[in-house]
């Protein structure tokens, strides 16, 4: 997030795209409600009528996968209405002409037609967003999980820069991170091509720095992305895997491919706190310690690094992730030894510039620090891109519509969209252990629009055989107007309905993020 979460409460206009905020990020939704109470206007871009969409002043119920046409139409309207921030564009950005030329070639009616949203509504949203003094964009996986995910995000950035809605407090672009420490994992280089603090592995200067610190030779070739690994196939180049705290046997798309890959490895080692669907396939399972059994830091969506403290000793033979890695590396001939997590943090401060001033003694007893925090005297950064963008000037990258990899057709006439429910978390490794959470949501429900349901003779509670070109699952129907006609929606938390057997593994060529949000499927009612 370029903003801090609390800033959202002060925004005048909040544009939410592809985020079921109330269910997936309730603490962020809380700030949105605060803002609405203060008179802020809410625009929601979502094919589904989510709970947040019911609070929206404008709900743009786009067809799945039409984010770019929508954002382009909004930008064109902003140009036509003379609402672009010329001074900001001049002072802070580059490549504006490419965007402008593309926008002027757009046929607005045609573009609106692709999105399925009336042009007047798009225009109202564009003007509302552009006219605000303080406007934030919050987006989530509904934007990124498409084959054009990177372009979707760039188009959001284009919109924010075109209107100058960055670099100030209460204005910005906020991707909402889905896990407590996914930001921290990226920051620490759990990416194919980067060392901690986003220092590329193929730059000799950075590589030398880490080689000196770790006393070993490091590769300058970027590694593989998640999908390139879990979908590498039975004869893939990868022969062994260590999977920590991840459950690809439920979370990755086109599960049959994942299963074929994992089952044919020479060695699969899984470290998790419960025996997950993935761990069940492993040759060796390491019992990992839970949050309550370890000390360290988590970095949240707003780049805030906070302490997590051990409150109970590890149960049974559990060990923390850090200890597991150290023990493994010692066995494998690299003598990795850290006396404490504080020592690890000191090394992070030394090697990762954005964490330069973060030491345990500074983040203890307070709400932590937000990166970039360059040195011990630095107070951290509540919002990004003040005075200049990290890369210098903000670069406009115009994008044009790209249809989803798999569109509905006669055989598979529905669009399947997948997401999350409030009471379960990701593959449910932890939440499915809780009886009260399971009482609230214990099974996947397939949301079907009433018009489609009437045609198929479906009623809430009926069982449906849902199939795609890749696989099928049996799921209970839930008839609701939350989904548009022609679309169905369900969650992926439950192994009984392993919906990722069906999802498409087409992916964005740049980010390698799979298109979970659009797969063509067929529904058949199962008669009891």
């Amino acid at each position, binding site marked *: 997030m370029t903003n801090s979460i609390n800033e959202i409460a002060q925004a005048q206009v909040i544009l939410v795209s592809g985020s079921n905020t109330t269910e997936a990020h309730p603490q962020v939704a809380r700030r949105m*409600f*605060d803002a609405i*109470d203060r008179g802020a206007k809410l625009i929601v871009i979502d094919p589904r009528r989510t*709970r947040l969409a019911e609070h929206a002043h404008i709900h743009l119920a786009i067809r799945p996968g039409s984010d770019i046409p929508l954002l382009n139409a909004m930008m064109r309207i902003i140009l036509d209405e003379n609402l672009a921030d010329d001074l900001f564009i001049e002072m802070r950005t580059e490549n504006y002409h490419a965007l402008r030329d593309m926008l002027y070639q757009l046929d607005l009616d045609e573009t609106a037609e692709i999105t399925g949203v009336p042009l007047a509504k798009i225009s109202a949203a564009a003007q509302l967003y552009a006219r605000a003094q303080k406007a934030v964009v919050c987006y989530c996986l509904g934007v990124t999980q498409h084959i054009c995910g990177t372009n979707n995000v760039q188009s959001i950035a284009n919109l924010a820069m075109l209107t100058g809605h960055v670099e100030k407090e209460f204005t910005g672009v906020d991707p909402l991170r889905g896990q407590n420490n996914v930001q921290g994992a990226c920051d620490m280089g759990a990416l194919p091509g980067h060392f901690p603090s986003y220092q590329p592995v193929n730059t000799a200067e950075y590589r030398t720095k880490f080689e000196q610190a770790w006393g070993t030779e490091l590769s300058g070739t970027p590694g593989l992305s998640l999908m390139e690994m879990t979908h590498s196939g039975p004869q893939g180049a990868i022969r062994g895997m260590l999977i920590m705290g991840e459950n690809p046997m439920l979370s990755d798309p086109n599960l049959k491919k994942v299963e074929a890959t994992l089952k044919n490895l020479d060695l699969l080692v899984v470290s998790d706190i419960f025996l997950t669907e993935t761990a069940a396939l492993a040759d060796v399972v390491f019992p990992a310690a839970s949050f309550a059994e370890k000390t360290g830091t988590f970095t949240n969506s707003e780049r805030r690094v906070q302490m997590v403290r051990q409150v109970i000793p590890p149960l049974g033979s559990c060990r923390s992730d850090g200890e597991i890695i150290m023990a493994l590396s010692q066995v494998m001939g690299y003598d990795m030894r850290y006396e404490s997590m504080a020592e690890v943090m000191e090394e992070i401060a030394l090697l990762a510039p954005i964490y330069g001033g973060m030491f345990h003694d500074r983040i203890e007893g307070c709400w932590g620090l937000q990166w970039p925090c360059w040195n011990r005297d630095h107070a951290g950064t509540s919002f990004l891109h003040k005075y200049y963008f990290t890369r210098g000037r903000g670069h406009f990258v115009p994008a044009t519509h790209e249809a989803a990899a798999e569109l509905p057709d006669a055989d598979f006439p529905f669009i399947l969209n997948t997401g999350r429910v409030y009471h379960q978390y990701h593959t449910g490794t932890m939440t499915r252990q809780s009886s009260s959470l399971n*009482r609230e949501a214990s099974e996947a429900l397939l949301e079907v629009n009433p018009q489609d349901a009437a045609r198929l003779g479906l009623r809430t509670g009926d069982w449906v055989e849902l199939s795609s070109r890749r696989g099928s699952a049996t799921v209970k129907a839930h008839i609701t107007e939350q989904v548009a006609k022609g679309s169905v929606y369900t969650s992926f938390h439950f192994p009984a309905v392993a919906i990722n057997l069906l999802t498409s593994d087409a992916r964005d060529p740049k980010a390698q993020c799979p298109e979970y949000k659009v797969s063509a499927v067929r529904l058949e009612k199962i008669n009891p």
Partner: protein
Amino acid sequence: MNDHYILKKDHLNSLLRRLMKEYRLVAPTKNPHGDTLFSIIDSIEQAHIDLASQPQGSIKPFLFPQQEVLFDYEHSATIDYHFEHTPDSIPTAFFGVRSCDLSAVLYMDVIFSQKKRDPYYFEKRNEAIIISLACNEPFANCFCNATKTGPFLEYGFDLQLTDLNDRFMVETGRAKGCEIVKRFQHFFEPVEERDSKAQYQAFLEARSHFKQQVHVEQAIKRLAREPIPEEIWESLSLRCQDCGGCAYLCPTCTCFTITDLATSASSGRRIRSWDACTFSGFTRMAGGHNPINSRTHSIKQRFLHKLKYDVQEHGRPSCVGCGRCVGICFGGVDIIRFINKACGQN
């Protein structure tokens, strides 16, 4: 008529230490992370007793724990069902309980003794001594003046303390409080006229320090008279995130669910845990039908229970005005907002 005494603040720790010899002491304590919670005090020196902040939770969990083992059971071919209950009844002195939280305990006394007395609650309650602290300075979300459960009480406490700067005015209420004064007489001095005046003054001033204007009486009357417009239920329920935080923190929410946890094929334990009417699973039936639309009416039961059904049943609302649900709610679906809406304000 309550008796009045003076306890100098200099001697408070000494009195508490004396009480700790006979009772488990529970008081609002600030932990190293800055949160004030009712906690068991092992050492007066090491605990940071905090009487200046509102404790984040009430003393409900000590009398009605979030999870409680009712009994262990065993059954086999040779023995018939065998049940065993291990009582949890440690004599406990609760110190620094605010008027609202004490009123909530009085409400729980009623709830847990309808028809049949709840043995699990009363085994703890009967061993409790409650030393309350009147509120000279209400906290940000307090409105106990509107629910008539504070800031000072006239009955229900064992002892009630009023802060008079360097001293506490001590009032005896129930017999256990009188007994403490009698047993530890040397701590308590007679009241002078200026002390009574100071207490009266504190009493008057506290009433004008409330930051919230909440028209509880008006809402109760309206609820008794006519149904609340559907839009109000819907607009609030849509913001409810179904976290149950309000019910868990509420000092008077006492709904529970019972689960049997098998520990082997022939033995197990029966557990009682907190539940909340805002959860969809609270009312959903086995076939999946839910008589309450959890999307549009999730909070209806909660507010009607507090402000209508309990008024019909017990003659008074079961909201004690502590304001905790105001601070905890993700969606701003708190009782103050509801009361204001019910009274036609926004």
